[in-house]
């Protein structure tokens, strides 16, 4: 490793601090409160979470010369038409992303990402709720096993799992060879928005199922029995009792699917074949390819604000954050 003196300083400083604080924590003086134990963590979080966030803020509001500017945000709305032209040159398919040749790339990408995330969330909810409901049924003995079956796929590297879809969806992939065998025409399954959506649903579906399953399986059976005792039929019992009580699970399911969906990164590149781009890819490209930290930071900041807003909105529905504990 070649390190600057400053870098070495930082490493040595944090190392010494870590050891010192832990040693200190163990030898606490009796009068000292146990809260001293959390001080290494506090220092760590300030160094590696709070300071980096401030750096994003710093870059977002400065230009290349380090002067204060709002340009980075102005650019966001006011588009880089030039960039768009370049994108077309690079082979991006504007139609695929529902873009027009006019307007801001960033705004278009953001709208596209939000649409995709929304679509993904709705599909996950529609697929996941019935699944969770069926698994959480107390009479169903296999329920806990099936839930573990939902966790296991997540251990396989997510990049490889996504790439594995390529083998299935390709023009000469497994699905199409099956179609040919059956004498059916080949389908164009890859490199489009549908494929990206499929990849997203595939990756995020378990995150919808867990919290809903949690909320449903915690429910007191007697509540349903009481509803039926009071004359509700099966549908009304579900609609008036089971469903409203599973709301915290639904809310945290939506949070856990929607948040990562918006910033999806990599999936569009593989399954969309570079025809589409989502906000995560845009941020990555702005930093690493376009090498523009200031605009990249501004984009990240917007992303965070968006996410914080959605979270606080969702917190209002589920103030306890109850369903959130899938781990």
């Amino acid at each position, binding site marked *: 490793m070649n390190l600057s003196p400053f870098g070495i300083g930082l490493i040595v400083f944090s190392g010494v601090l870590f050891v010192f604080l832990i040693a200190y924590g163990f030898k606490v003086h009796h009068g000292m409160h146990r809260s001293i134990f959390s001080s290494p963590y506090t220092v760590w979080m300030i160094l*590696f979470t709070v300071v980096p966030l401030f750096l994003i803020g710093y870059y977002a509001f400065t230009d290349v010369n380090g002067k204060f500017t709002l340009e980075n945000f102005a650019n966001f709305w006011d588009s880089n038409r030039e960039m768009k032209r370049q994108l077309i040159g690079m082979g991006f398919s504007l139609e695929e992303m529902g873009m027009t040749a006019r307007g801001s790339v960033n705004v278009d990408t953001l709208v596209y990402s939000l649409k995709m995330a929304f679509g993904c969330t709705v599909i996950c909810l529609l697929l996941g709720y019935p699944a969770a409901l*069926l698994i959480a049924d107390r009479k169903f003995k296999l329920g806990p096993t099936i839930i573990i079956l939902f966790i296991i796929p997540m251990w396989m590297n997510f990049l490889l799992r996504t790439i594995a879809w390529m083998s299935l969806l390709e023009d000469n992939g497994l699905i199409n060879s099956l179609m040919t065998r059956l004498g059916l025409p080949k389908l164009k399954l890859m490199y489009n928005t549908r494929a990206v959506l499929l990849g997203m649903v595939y990756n995020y579906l378990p995150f919808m199922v867990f919290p809903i399953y949690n909320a449903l399986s915690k429910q007191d059976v007697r509540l349903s029995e009481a509803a039926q005792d009071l004359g509700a039929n099966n549908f009304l019992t579900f609609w008036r009792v089971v469903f409203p009580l599973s709301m915290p699970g639904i809310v945290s399911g939506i949070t856990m699917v929607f948040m990562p969906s918006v910033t999806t990164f990599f999936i569009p590149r593989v399954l969309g074949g570079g025809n589409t781009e989502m906000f995560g890819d845009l941020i*990555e490209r702005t930093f690493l390819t376009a090498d523009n930290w200031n605009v990249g930071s501004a984009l990240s900041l917007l992303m965070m604000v968006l996410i914080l807003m959605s979270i606080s909105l969702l917190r209002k529905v589920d103030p306890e954050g109850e369903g959130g504990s899938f781990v």
Partner: protein
Amino acid sequence: MKKWVRGIYLPLILLFLYLPIVVLIVQSFNAGVSRARWEGFSLRWYKELFASPQIMRALYVTLSIAVLASIFATILGTLAAIGINSMGKKASSAMLTLTNIPMTMPDIVTGISLMLLFIFTKVSRGYFTMLLAHVTFNTPYVILSVMPKLREMNKYSYEAALDLGATPSYALRHVILPSIFPGITTGALLSFTLSLDDFTISYFTTSPLVQNLSTLIYSEARKGIKPTMNALSALMFVALLILLLVVNRRTSADHK
């Protein structure tokens, strides 16, 4: 009727989840390179896997970082949880908010913000920075695993130990740690698996010279993934499955 729906619906969903994994594992035993054509059973890719220095190095990086990061995160997180648990309401809720930041932030923002920090402080990115990043995103999960165990503890247990003559350090080692041990194991395992699977944050905090499996797969994805990778992930998948079975067997034995 409900049984009937369940009998069809759940297998379909599971098929959807397992299809790519099955494909991936089958491919790892395929004699040919083709992703779609079966050219006979072979262990060729498994042999090539162990012969590839690149993959072996990436495996070493992935595993060593997962082990080190989960150890550091477990120490840091357990101590933090003990501290937070003994704080007043205001201070502890402030600490928990701080803990929630990296968990609610998208991975890409966490990764980029750390990258900016390392560039800004002129620390060249590589193994060490990746390790730092992994400790950073793992620690909150350890805290969340340990916290409930601490809350379950009788709040006078610690004082009772001091009352019986234990020094704070003795009370910590002999009373608090044993009571929250299940939470610590959960946290350590969780951070190990999170670390093993992480791509986004590693991608931004390392250099192309030091790659873990995820970043290696990513850089190869453009050229086309060789089935050696499938062979490796099939192996790791099985290893994790065994780990889970062992842990489950042990915890269920504890309950008896």
